[in-house]
């Protein structure tokens, strides 16, 4: 109702030729998009939660409510306290860890780049923005494939080192392990982090920086007390933009992970395609989303506390 009242004061709704009230016109315009999002995302997400409480019997779904899938996953996790984690908990922990390392690398590398663009580039900013955006939109599949070419047994690094006479046998540890997955993810998602950080750095009022300098802050002190805190919204956005999708990534672990580098996404896909156990796959999907949500909440809580502490000083 407040929206109605405030809508009535806006200039467009005073127009006598209008027939529809403003709030209805707005809803009308956004309704088709909303319908798509509800139909293609919300309903399927609810469905997968429901299916995770069912079981697979042969080719059919047994639709009686059961906690069997989650029981299996809980047993799997409980093994962490006795004789080593089960398959699924290992995969979830490994996926979170790989994404965490890749995200840290991406953001640590992206921050100086964004800083450079925001504070050092005076002319031709558009060119730099486009240079950084192009890799973001070029084929993800091909960016990952490029690393397979680089790190492979007969790949660019191995054959290059061999033709230089530095090694005799190809280095086998380059490809098909968690490290190659991490490197590939860090490269493939690099471009996603620069722009959000850049935007929040660019928004900083330059007079704050001058004020800090005038009041006697050194360059480092000024950075940590003014620039960095003000760039946190973009930095947090960048961290989430990279971390959330990489946990469930499928292409990278499949192409460069090998048996030791597979992640939780591979396991979910297997349940739906090869193992034909959709309910277990559904439960794994829910568990993955839960793990991502918990990790993100933990991260935001830590950041929130740090920020509060910073405000006290």
């Amino acid at each position: 109702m407040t929206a109605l009242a405030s809508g009535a004061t806006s200039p467009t709704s005073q127009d006598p030729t209008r027939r529809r009230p403003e709030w209805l016109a707005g809803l009308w315009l956004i309704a088709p998009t909303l319908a798509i999002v509800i139909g293609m995302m919300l309903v399927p997400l609810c469905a997968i939660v429901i299916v995770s409480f069912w079981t697979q019997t042969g080719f059919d779904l047994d639709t009686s409510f059961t906690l069997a899938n989650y029981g299996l996953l809980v047993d799997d996790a409980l093994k962490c306290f006795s004789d080593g984690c089960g398959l699924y908990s290992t995969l979830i922990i490994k996926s979170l860890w790989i994404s965490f390392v890749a995200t840290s690398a991406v953001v640590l590398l992206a921050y100086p780049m964004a800083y450079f663009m925001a504070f050092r580039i005076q002319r031709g900013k558009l060119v730099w923005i486009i240079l950084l955006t192009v890799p973001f939109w070029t084929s993800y599949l091909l960016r990952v494939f490029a690393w397979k070419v680089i790190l492979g047994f007969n790949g660019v690094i191995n054959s290059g080192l061999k033709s230089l006479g530095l090694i005799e046998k190809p280095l086998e540890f380059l490809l098909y392990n968690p490290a190659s997955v991490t490197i590939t993810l860090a490269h493939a998602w690099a471009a996603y982090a620069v722009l959000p950080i850049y935007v929040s750095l660019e928004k900083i009022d330059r007079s704050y920086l001058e004020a800090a300098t005038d009041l006697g802050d050194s360059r480092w002190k000024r950075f940590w007390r003014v620039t960095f805190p003000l760039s946190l919204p973009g930095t947090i956005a960048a961290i989430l933009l990279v971390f959330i999708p990489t946990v469930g990534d499928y292409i990278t672990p499949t192409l460069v992970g090998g048996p030791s580098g597979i992640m939780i996404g591979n396991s979910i896909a297997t349940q739906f395609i090869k193992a034909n156990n959709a309910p277990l796959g559904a439960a794994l999907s829910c568990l993955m989303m839960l793990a991502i949500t918990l990790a993100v909440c933990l991260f935001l809580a830590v950041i929130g506390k740090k920020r509060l502490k910073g405000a006290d000083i």
Partner: protein
Amino acid sequence: MSFLRRHTNLLSLFAVLYLLFLYVPVLLLPLFSFNDNIYVTLPLKGFTLKWYESLAGNSALLNALWASVKVGIGVSIISTVLGLMAARAMTRYRFPGRRSIYALILLPLVIPYMVIGVSTLVILRRLLDVELSLLTVGASHVLITVPLSMLVLMARMEGFDRSLEEASRDLGDTAWRSFRRVTLPLVMPGIVSSFLLCFITSFDEYLLAFFLAGSDSTLPIFIFSTLRFPNKIPDVLALGSLILMISIVLVVLAEWLRRRGISGSDSSVL
């Protein structure tokens, strides 16, 4: 301001290295696509165009390419029209639940495609028994491209002077007429940019297509399955180089159109 320049050189060096890190791995693909060697190894052997020639006769590839182009064009038209309407609603109207609806539409950007893929698969196959085809791929691609389109167009619509529209209304134009004669021309660069970005996103998307294409094949599915055969790698290199070239042209065009005139405000995160 001399303290600003002191470390400029170090930072510039980092910036150049960063760009090399972004570009060199990807640019290896075109380099090796001209190499006369079935293995991707150094040193380079000799220049050849035979990998490109072998693409032209590959009918499975051409079918997959055509499927991806069809899906891409359909998806970008639908998403851009929906995105245009949604962006207009978000920038020009107040309505109940505006913020929650906005957040909901952006949600597909932060949900792993794996989850969207398998949950759509479950509802289509197990619960509704819909036949999988390029249409189901297209529907899921609309879901993931609509938020992009809306963001691009919102940035564009916030970037121009609202009083131009009001002037048109005051001079007696109907809402539709002033939209068509004033708003649309001003938003046009954003529309083209949204179309191109949606097309590239759909054209490149593998995971949703993998789950939802059924027996059909799109180009990323074709590439992914080809990667399993080592002797087909040069073909993928040639094909990948062509895709890279085309998508770089499209992206530069889209970004240039999108940022032109609003580069100062730069309100878009993407």
